[in-house]
């Protein structure tokens, strides 16, 4: 019996979400009186996961897992779970984890719940709270199978440093063939992705045109943030579709979401609701976003954003 957690890495380096899922797995393991085993694939410094609560790391080094493949990764994690006799498997909510989770659920005959936001309120029956209706509500849901898979919503638990150490064991699962082969990847490596970002700066139709996004990108750069946009902005081709957030776009669960020139339509808010702190900049004091935000500035983005960039630069220089 143990809690198994899949820790994602990129170019050998653990993602921040990996530290969060280990922290969460540790809290679940404490409730169940057991320990945490992490699975790491082609990652360096696996022992560092001990700091977040893993007692053991199954470290897989395999060229067959060099690029992400849902079927192959699911098979590797399945074998790790069986090896450990795990009854709970914890994953993040990254695109990759959400891709492999249903395959893993079938392989392990495990009940799976995604978008989980808290530690279990009960371990028998195993009950967790998850978002539903695209963040307009929460559902308290039970998993009835022996093995349970929990997909943790990003930034919902946080990173907790426990300060322990982990034993690293080499693990060599057998990797099946997959009928899906990557031909090419087109990815901006120098930018923070919306999924990984702690801060997201988002622009709406109030910005008038794509030529005005320079200040949005500059603000994002100062904050180390990802950039996003409302649906009409991507429909109009001002920004790429991959930046569209909301109910029918990407979900945002960042610590800080700054909405500039976005009215706050219900479909937009649904997708960004789980962000912790929301700031809105809008000329119209009646814009619905003000009802959903924590902080607001009634003002013209073309004045407020440059001022904010300047003040943040000064703040950073002072706190450097």
């Amino acid at each position, binding site marked *: 019996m143990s809690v198994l957690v899949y820790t994602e890495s990129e170019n050998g380096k653990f993602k921040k979400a990996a530290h969060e899922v280990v922290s969460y797995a540790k809290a679940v393991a404490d409730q169940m009186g057991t320990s945490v085993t992490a699975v790491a694939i082609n990652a360096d410094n696996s022992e560092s996961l001990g700091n977040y609560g893993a007692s053991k790391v199954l470290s897989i080094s395999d060229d067959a897992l060099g690029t992400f493949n849902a079927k192959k990764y699911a098979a590797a994690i399945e074998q790790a779970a069986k090896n450990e006799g795990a009854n709970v498997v914890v994953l993040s909510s990254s*695109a990759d984890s959400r*891709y492999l989770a249903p395959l893993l659920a079938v392989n392990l005959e495990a009940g799976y719940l995604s978008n989980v936001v808290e530690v279990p309120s009960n371990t028998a029956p195993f009950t967790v709270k998850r978002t539903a209706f695209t963040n307009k509500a929460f559902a308290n849901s039970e998993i009835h199978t022996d093995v349970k898979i929990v997909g943790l919503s990003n930034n919902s638990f946080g990173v907790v440093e426990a300060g322990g150490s982990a034993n690293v064991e080499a693990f060599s699962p057998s990797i099946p063939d997959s009928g*899906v082969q990557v031909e090419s*990847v087109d990815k901006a490596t120098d930018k923070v992705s919306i999924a990984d970002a702690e801060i997201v700066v988002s622009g709406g139709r109030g910005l008038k045109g794509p030529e005005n996004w320079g200040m949005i990108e500059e603000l994002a750069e100062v904050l180390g943030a990802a950039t996003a946009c409302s649906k009409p902005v991507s429909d109009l081709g001002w920004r790429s579709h991959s930046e569209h957030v909301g109910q029918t776009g990407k979900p945002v669960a960042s610590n800080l979401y700054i909405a500039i020139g976005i009215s706050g339509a219900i479909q937009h808010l649904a997708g960004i609701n789980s962000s912790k702190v929301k*700031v809105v900049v809008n000329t119209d004091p009646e814009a619905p976003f003000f009802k959903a935000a924590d902080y607001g500035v009634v003002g013209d983005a073309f004045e407020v954003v440059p001022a904010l960039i300047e003040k943040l630069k000064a*703040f950073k220089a002072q706190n450097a």
Partner: protein
Amino acid sequence: MKILVCISHVPDTTSKINFTDGDTKFDTNGVQFVINPNDEFGLTRAMWFKEKQGAAVTVVNVGGPETEPTLRKALAIGADAAIRVNTEATDGFAVAKQLAQVVNDGGYDLIIAGRESIDYNGGMVPGMLAGMIDANFVTNCIGLEIDGTSAKAVREIDGGKETVNTSLPLVIGGQKGLVEESDLRIPNMRGIMMARKKPLTVVEPTGVSAETKAVSFEKPAPKGAVKLVDADNIDELVNLLHNEAKVI
């Protein structure tokens, strides 16, 4: 090519979400139901395969009789036939099991589902279905071409996209991008008339039980009032974000 498009019947995106029966049931009162937006993109792409490559398109829903208007709408958009598996959709696993049975009975080559449904938005059904029927699987799919039995798909990934080569039988989780928003079809009068004559077959479920259960619902805690900062005093915003919200 035989295509099955999985249609989830969901509350319209503008719906206010409420619960009844001691917060154990979704309150459908006054709620308008629609084809799940992600499935609408998939259905439109299926119409393209029908018109350009002679594919036969069947739509399917696992649900009670109340979902039939949604299936009729899909027929009016141009699907050839509809199937309703007559059982309440209880969890992703149970739905995927029912769909697996439909796929096995009908021998479909391409199964187009949505990335996630906007109600319980699990993002579970397509992957589970692919696992159960041992088909290839691509989710977050924003582009799909089929040539004979080979397929090329584009998938959105965190921070970009990737192109993959795969083959039929294939399950995809589609989303916006699979077709352009402006290409989505609204049923016209002729389509609606024709849909009345198209077959909508009701099949009985195979015996499976759910693995998970939503026992109660709650709504997010009401929000405190927004703190307004004067546009001439942006220093104060930086101060609040640093000292009060502690996010920078």
